[in-house]
């Protein structure tokens, strides 16, 4: 177990290093010049040169990367070019909001996806099944901005069940999480459906039926846990998928997460922030996969044995 953990830690570190290196390279391949973005339109060439020097942008790429890595080992994510403040603090201030949103989004999509997938599998071929499959397509092909506004318009403006914007209470998280979860729920419904159909054909389900159990018990106690494994593998992947959705959803609902920070940073070529957000989200993805790997054996004892 210790070995396994160590191994995962080293792997995680290597992946983060790789992500950092690629991101760094890509950002410097960009034709846009951060010094000029900071200097603004009235700046003289001298001002731009000064800023470039102060930011260390006039050093060779490798030296810059090395300096960045050195900072990282000290837990220092650098200073934002545009905001002139510590990136770590900026991200730390906004990360909890995004994590809450993501967790809630995953909760919604898994719950919705499981529910729809299970009833579709149980009613395979019937009208319920067809409706669910149709709904999952609506979810998958709904542009998130429109979905977000639509939900906001119906549930916050017209019905006034939830606040339109902001952060803090449970009511605030419902609409953003639902928006975020709709797309994923479509995918999950499909995955769960096909996994469930497969599991319902297994011998042990027949055994359960031979015991005279109720269908609810057969579906939820016997079949569902077995169908859950692929879903858990998906959750790890999802965190990465969520990143772009988070930008849109946070914008619409005024959610103070890192999506907005990242978006503005990209517009301004604020490299330290982009790097910071990238690394944090990479870490979240790796951790997400780790969590998936930890949950899997809880559900499937066979994996525990391996």
């Amino acid at each position, binding site marked *: 177990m210790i070995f396994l953990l160590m191994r995962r830690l080293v792997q995680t570190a290597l992946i983060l290093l790789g992500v950092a290196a690629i991101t760094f390279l890509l950002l410097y391949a960009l034709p*846009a010049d951060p010094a000029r973005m900071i200097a603004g339109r009235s700046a003289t060439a*001298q*001002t731009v040169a000064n800023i470039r020097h102060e930011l260390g942008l006039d050093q060779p790429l490798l030296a810059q990367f090395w300096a960045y890595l050195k900072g990282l080992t000290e837990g220092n994510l650098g200073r934002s*070019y545009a905001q002139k403040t510590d990136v770590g603090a900026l991200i730390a201030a906004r990360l909890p*909001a995004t994590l809450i949103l993501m967790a809630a989004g995953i909760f919604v999509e898994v719950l919705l996806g499981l529910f729809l997938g299970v009833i579709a599998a149980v009613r395979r071929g019937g009208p319920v099944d067809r409706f669910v499959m149709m709904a999952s397509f609506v979810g998958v092909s709904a542009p998130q901005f429109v979905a977000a506004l639509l939900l906001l318009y119906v549930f916050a403006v017209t019905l006034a069940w939830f606040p339109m914007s902001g952060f803090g209470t449970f009511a605030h998280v419902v609409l953003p999480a639902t928006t975020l979860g709709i797309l994923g729920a479509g995918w999950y419904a499909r995955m769960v459906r096909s996994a469930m159909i497969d599991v319902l054909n297994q011998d042990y389900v027949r055994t359960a039926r031979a015991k005279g159990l109720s269908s609810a018990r057969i579906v939820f106690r016997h079949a569902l846990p077995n169908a859950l494994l692929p879903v858990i593998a998906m959750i790890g992947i999802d965190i990465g998928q969520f990143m772009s959705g988070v930008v849109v959803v946070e*914008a619409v609902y005024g959610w*103070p997460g890192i999506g*907005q920070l990242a978006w503005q940073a990209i517009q301004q070529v604020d490299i330290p922030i982009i790097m910071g957000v990238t690394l944090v989200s990479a870490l979240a993805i790796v951790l997400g996969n780790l969590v998936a790997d930890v949950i899997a054996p809880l559900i499937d004892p066979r994996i525990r044995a391996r």
Partner: protein
Amino acid sequence: QDAIKQGGDIVITYKDDIATLDPAIGYDWVNWSMIKSLYSRLMDYTPGTPDLIPSLAETYEVSPDGLTYTFKLRKGVKFTNGREVVASDVKYSIERAVDPKTQGPGAGFFGAIKGFDAVTGGASTTLEGIATPDDSTVIFTLSRPDATFLHVLAINFASVVPKEAVEAAAGDFGKKPVGSGTFVLKEWTVGQRLVFERNPDYFVKDMPHIDKFTVEVGQEPLVALLRLQKGEVDIAGDGIPPAKFVEIKNSPEGADIIVDGAQLHTGYITLNTRVKPFDNVKVRQALNMAINKERITRILNGRATAANQPLPPLMPGYDKSFTGYAFDVEKAKALLAEAGFPDGFETILYSTNTDPQPRIAQAIQQDLAAVGVKAEVRALAQANVIAAGGTEGEAPMIWSGGMAWIADFPDPSNFYGPILGCAGAVQGGWNWSWYCNKDLDARAIAADSMSDPAKATERQAVWGKIFTDIMADAPWIPLTNERRVVAKSPRMGGSGDIYVDPTRVINYDAIFVKD
């Protein structure tokens, strides 16, 4: 006009987060007006107008040669940390803005002060041209006459800050601002809201009018508008998105909500004079006649007027009688044929990628197609467009929308140097036409040397002529002068001018609540 009332709390929303409130660094239109209100400067403007007035300065004198400016400070003005503002604070603040270590974008504005080059070059850390003989006197010595210098002392970069607070903040002054302005920052929850409260000790009586304003950031304009209609928000800082404009305008409460005012803005297309075939003046002139500006103002829901010269109508020096190039497809075609392009040519039109800019680019594209010019539209992130514009030989045409010039201060010279003068036509510059006319440059320098306030009207006329003459060479296609649209709740009082202040965006000092 409603009578001004004191008191009241209001809520204002913006989409973008507030990057910084450090006056030496902040340079975007959202934090611009907040910085204005947090700090005070030697000079300021009468709210809602482009008229300069002394502010921290009680009085000032300009020497006849225009090279020495002497300011007497108001007595008893206090920073919000309790210390009195003295002359050395002014010197410190301007030196700080110029110091390369600050990485501020505004250093260039102070280029006329003696010793500027030594500081930016790193040879010195103090400006030779600022002297403080006593606590209430500041004397500026310039290396060349600069007619805009009083304006320079009114821009944010000249805001006065207390040294001890800057040092105490240890590099985070932008988040812990201390000034002597109308408001004090009370709370800043990153990514969510900033709360400003009135400075009870502000040195002008009954300023500001409101007690408190809360800025909520990260608010999608469309949602902000819905909230405003529900009464949760008082000012939607980003205005009314096109998708909602017609609906709101035609709604019964529309007139109460919409504030629509002219600003110092011109939207234009740059024609890169160093790229074929735009090196040919006939081509540039022809394209000036090819664009149907009426359609573009219609796309903008009528929130703009057609432009024919670089200066916006509100700017001193604007030539009302100038007609520029009229829309005339046939003439444009003829001129193109004359220039050797009877069948047109292919080119690229850059634009930023935020609505409505790509749409306007497409409208331009269609008009160009009508005269045979096939333009490929490239809608990119702003940073990339700016990079392309500043790279020689890269971008043949750029639609300036989204990055367009809004003046830093209401003086025509602000519309020339970086964007049309030779100084801007360099790698990384903002003169995306790469237009350099030595003759006009000389006339511009001459005009800026006319620093005698008595010659102000004459100087404006000189500038005006420069901008109309430039149109003969047609480095731009001036397209529109956009008006600014802000949405405010009916409880907000005051004329439109203070919501679309020409030198600020929203003048928080002057707005008030009616109920």
